[in-house]
């Protein structure tokens, strides 16, 4: 009886309390102190256009403020938890060595996530970063989810692949191009994670490089290369899989029972934290970067780019400081980056927002995931028929989530 009584009391008090709260909704003024990147301050930046979008995390309501200056804009919003995004264009002027004036339009962005707005007034600082739309290689498709066999079993014979597309109008060379999986998992937020270097470099756990001396693997504009785990026609073993026998490269790791297909060139393994062969995260909880570090040898990478980090693992009453060794890739070397996660699994970003503002996904870590990929959207087709893929470093916008895989085909 006592319990019931207490429960009733609690229920009534909640009702009473919530009624009262409904009557007076609180609003707060949020003042956003925008800071331009240092490299821009000398370039006499003039604001062309900019807007601040504040999204209420709980209700999804967006408050959009067009900015006329880069002085601290003030927005009045209902109290709550917010994500802030600033997008803007600046006109900059610089002079080259010969004294000639160069006018540039530079795009900037800024983000702040999970800002708690409460208490009437709030000042927040936001650093803006320069945002470049790439015009080179882009990751056009990632098939991380595996396929299922007709028996309903997960097919485990290596049909995961990446497709890399030449999004420019010139011939590019794939030689030395590296693909890496992030060490951080977007579905596992780490407590007391340190050192956090994401704004300057990306922690990676597996790195493979396309061989070649510089001009061995040309990729025509509008064409792509496919790199996969095991380059065979998987369809003969599993009708739900794909024919990857025409893949350009395969990643091979002599550990475990990894098989090597003699017909297809192996990528050069630079680094891996895994004791067995590399299987990419099938739920898409790790993210991928494409980069070049021309003059860095494998040995030098292992040594000079080593990255040691730790965090506090908490599970019920079990707590332990976990230490890990991985490597880091300077963000300035990164050509393209795609943050992946799952709808309900996403906890934090493995990549700095300057590399990818958001994230894409295939399914939601569930049955829907199998046999689906993430694919970059086609932005437009040029007069000569070349497809230009959408690349605004905003994966939620640039990618088709839970897409039907189409290796070797851009659609």
């Amino acid at each position: 009886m006592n319990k019931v009584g207490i429960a009733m009391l609690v229920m009534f008090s909640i009702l009473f309390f919530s009624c009262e709260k409904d009557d007076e909704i609180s609003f707060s003024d949020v003042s956003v102190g925008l800071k331009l990147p240092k490299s821009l301050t000398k370039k006499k930046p003039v604001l062309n256009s900019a807007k601040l979008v504040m999204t209420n995390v709980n209700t999804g309501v967006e408050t959009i403020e067009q900015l006329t200056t880069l002085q601290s804009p003030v927005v009045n919003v209902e109290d709550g938890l917010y994500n802030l995004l600033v997008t803007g264009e600046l006109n900059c002027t610089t002079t080259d060595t010969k004294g000639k004036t160069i006018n540039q339009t530079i795009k900037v962005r800024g983000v702040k996530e999970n800002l708690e707005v409460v208490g009437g007034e709030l000042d927040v600082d936001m650093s803006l970063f320069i945002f470049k739309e790439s015009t080179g290689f882009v990751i056009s498709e990632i098939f991380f989810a595996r396929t299922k066999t007709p028996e309903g079993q997960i097919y485990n014979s290596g049909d995961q692949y990446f497709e890399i597309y030449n999004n420019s109008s010139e011939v590019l060379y794939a030689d030395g191009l590296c693909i890496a999986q992030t060490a951080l998992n977007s579905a596992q937020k780490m407590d007391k994670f340190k050192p956090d270097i994401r704004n300057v470099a990306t922690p990676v756990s597996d790195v493979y490089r396309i061989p070649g001396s510089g001009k061995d693997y040309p990729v025509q504009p509008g064409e792509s290369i496919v790199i996969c785990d095991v380059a065979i026609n998987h369809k003969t073993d599993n009708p739900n899989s794909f024919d990857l026998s025409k893949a350009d490269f395969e990643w091979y790791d002599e550990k475990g029972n990894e098989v090597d297909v003699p017909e297809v060139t192996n990528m050069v393994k630079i680094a891996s934290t895994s004791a067995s062969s590399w299987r990419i995260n099938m739920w898409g909880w790790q993210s991928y970067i494409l980069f070049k570090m021309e003059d860095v040898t494998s040995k030098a990478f292992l040594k000079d780019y080593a990255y040691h980090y730790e965090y506090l693992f908490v599970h019920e009453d079990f707590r332990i400081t976990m230490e890990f060794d991985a490597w880091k890739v300077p963000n300035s070397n990164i050509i393209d980056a795609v943050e992946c996660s799952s709808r309900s699994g996403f906890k934090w970003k493995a990549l700095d927002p300057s590399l990818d503002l958001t994230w894409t996904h295939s399914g939601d870590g569930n049955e829907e995931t199998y046999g689906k990929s993430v694919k970059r959207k086609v932005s437009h087709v040029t007069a000569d028929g070349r497809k230009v893929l959408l690349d605004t470093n905003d994966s939620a916008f640039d990618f088709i989530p839970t897409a039907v895989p189409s290796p070797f085909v851009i659609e």
Partner: protein
Amino acid sequence: MEKLILLLLFILVGFQEVVFAQQITPILSGVIIDAKKHGAIPFANIYCKELKTGAVSDIDGSFLFPFVISGSYHFQVSCIGYHQLDTIMHIDQDQMVRLPLKKQDQKLEEVVVIAQVSDSKSTGSVIKKDALTHLQPSSFADILELLPGGVSKENNMSVMSLISLRQPVEASSFYNDENTHNSSLGTSFMVDGVPLSNDGQLQNVTGSYTHSSSSDNYISFRNTTGKGIDMRAISTDDIESVEIIRGIPSVKYGDLSSGLVMIHRSYKELPFHVRLKADPGSKLISAGKGFRLNKRQVLNVNADYIDYQSDPRNSKVNYNRITGSLHFVNKPIAKEHGLFFKANVDYTGTFDGRKKDSQIDLPETDRYKDNFNKVRMGAMVDWYPEDLSWLKKVSGYLTGSYTHEEKTISKAVSGSNSPITTSRKEGEYYGEFLPSSYVAHLVVDGKPLYLFARFSSDMDFSFLGNTHQLLVGGDWRYNKNNGLGEVYDVTRPLYAGNGRPRASNELPSVQVLSFFAEDNVTIPIGSNDLSLQAGVRAARALNVGDAYRISDRFFFDPRINWSWRFPRFNVFSKAVSVQLNGGFGWHTKFPTLSHLYPNLLYCDVVQLNYFSQNKALRQLNYCTKIIDPTNYQLKPNRNRKWEIGFAVKAGRIRLDVTGYHELMESGFKRLSQYDFITYKRCDISTGPSPEELTAPPTLDMFEYEQRKEFLTHGKVVNGSEEEKYGIEYQLDLGKVAPIYSRVSMNGAWMRARYGMSMPTYRHPSKIINDETYPYLGYYTWGNNKAYEQFNTNVRFDTQFPEMGLIFSSMLQTMWFTKRSYTSHNGMPEYYIDNENNVYPYRLEDTTDPVLRFLYKKPDPDEFDEWVVPLAIDFNLKVTKVISKDMKLAFYVNSILDYHPSYSRKDGTRVNRKVYPYFGMEFNVNI
């Protein structure tokens, strides 16, 4: 609220009685009253012999009886707790009568529904039939909640049920991966004086992960190989009494290290009785009868069936048990002497099944089924000679059991481009790849045969004026498995890497021969009495190869129990007796078939993996190394116990307190060992391209690199150190008149520590510069834990004979449970490179770029104690005696509870939620 409704519902059901009344004259109406107190008696039965109909009195004691024809009628009026009234009444018109019933001598109140302290000299509890009937057990595990330190648990028959004596609840959890199962293995179960055995079981599934969080735990949680008796298979019907000895048993009982459970079944005339039980998971029906064949012979027949589903809405996981038993006794003409002959035949069948939840669009391929059929037969002779003053008894027992257990597993498997490995010798082999997807079928066929024989005699002799009872004897046990072991298509194994099954029937039998001698004497010292039970047991293994250390020696178990009884004295005119008890003993459990004869380990490494797009050109070469994980040095598992305690009896009040200390230094444990494998790693780019080939390439066409790597594997060693100590107490206040209840309390404070008495090796799964980690660490510490708990259970057994109701309320209080990791420095003693060179590990190595991976730096609070505070549950059980031969019972556990939220040291708030569970039971004697 739910609990309240349940309670109300029960009360309604319990009290609702239907009166059959018809409006035909003449009518006999009346009231049934207590002859002495003149109060009305509700729910009394009025039976008319001639009409063969009856009525039941209502809550005011009144009843109505309509008749068709006038005349004389014979009535029987009965009610539980009262003497039956037989009366003849002449009925020719409507009549109103008062029928007085005389109260019986409190017969119902004598029902003892608790575990009593054992009368034998060993520390233990006895649970008699009345308590068992009241407890409504589905399986033997339910009985254990009556022991000090026991707590009630929800009945779960979808996984094995192992006994856990003197172990905190958390320590014996299946989810405790450090659980060695030495306590359950070391507890002997005896039925009618003959031990059961599970030592011949070999139902392991090679390659399945035993880690509790793996997806294979449905296999490991049902595999009792090397873990002792699965209590699910023991029927609880047909039991006269159970004695559970936690302390030091007589030397008559052997091949045990932790405790002894003695089940005594009924060998007597019994009416036909039926028991029906239902709770949300299970339905049980049992029936039995004891036939008196003639003056000296009784045959008991019993059968039960239980159907358990872990979720009543889902038949994917279920467990069924069928048992049947015939037991016969032939008693001598004279009661005291002559030949007692007992014989029994028992059958136990258990059928454990599990299907995987099917995805909507996928075929169901994954199944698990375990059919267990066991037949047990025994003959027991006890001869009490008439004329010999020195020879009191000669006993000869012989029993055997034959089991056929067949575990069938089907599972969809991904081949993952792994090799098919079938080589039986070390060397290099060309092989094939597993298909990328297939359905594997495995049958584990086990046919354990178990024989047991014992001969003993009891003798009396006088020495220094005292009469000694001497017990001498010997026993022999034989375990063999005649099964085929794992049977499957070696090219389609359940786990990649399997492919070398071994037939269990190739293994020799394990036999243990023992002798024992024990003296029992009571010596009066002044007006005190000193009772002594002292004996020694010698046991050795037979039929083991000379290479085994246990092959050539006896292991001796000296055991002593004593008690010192002080003279009685009076306090407030009540006789008080005080007794001190103590004991010391060694206990030896021999290794089982699975411990002595593990399967050979085949370690395969792929040397060449030429996976051409042209399937005809694919080539695979692997190298096999064989490791024999047999531990020839394996010793039995030995446990040393110390006990001290006292018992105080004052009138009906009895208090028993026992302190104990148990130390097992050489318990069985699987620890990691190491070896090396040398192999060739071929670089396929150095060989021919597919266009140049017409047939699969051979090893010699490729350049290779010679490699050497560590292999770590598990081995059963005497590496577990287990220490248990604590205090058990039981206070029985007898009947407390003002509250009409028998009040009793028991509980225990106990601590158990699980350590490692032998070293282990660990190889970090770390990649250094793209190479596997070059060193192996030698560690003398593991993930060892200590557990502590303190509980008190208070029972109120309230009996209302007038209403035929027994209320049992149990307040289970767990004052706290604690757990902590045993502290260590995180460092290995030394480390080994792949040339087997040994280097000491120094403190400065913990910061070395490579060697630091051998160091597991302890967190600052890693060895702190984790405490779970107070938790209280209130369980209610009500038995309604409908008539002398009919009982209805209902229970709700955790009907009320107090599990407050608490904050852990790290600031996390823990909310605990407890759900009540309930069941009901119906008993009929015909």
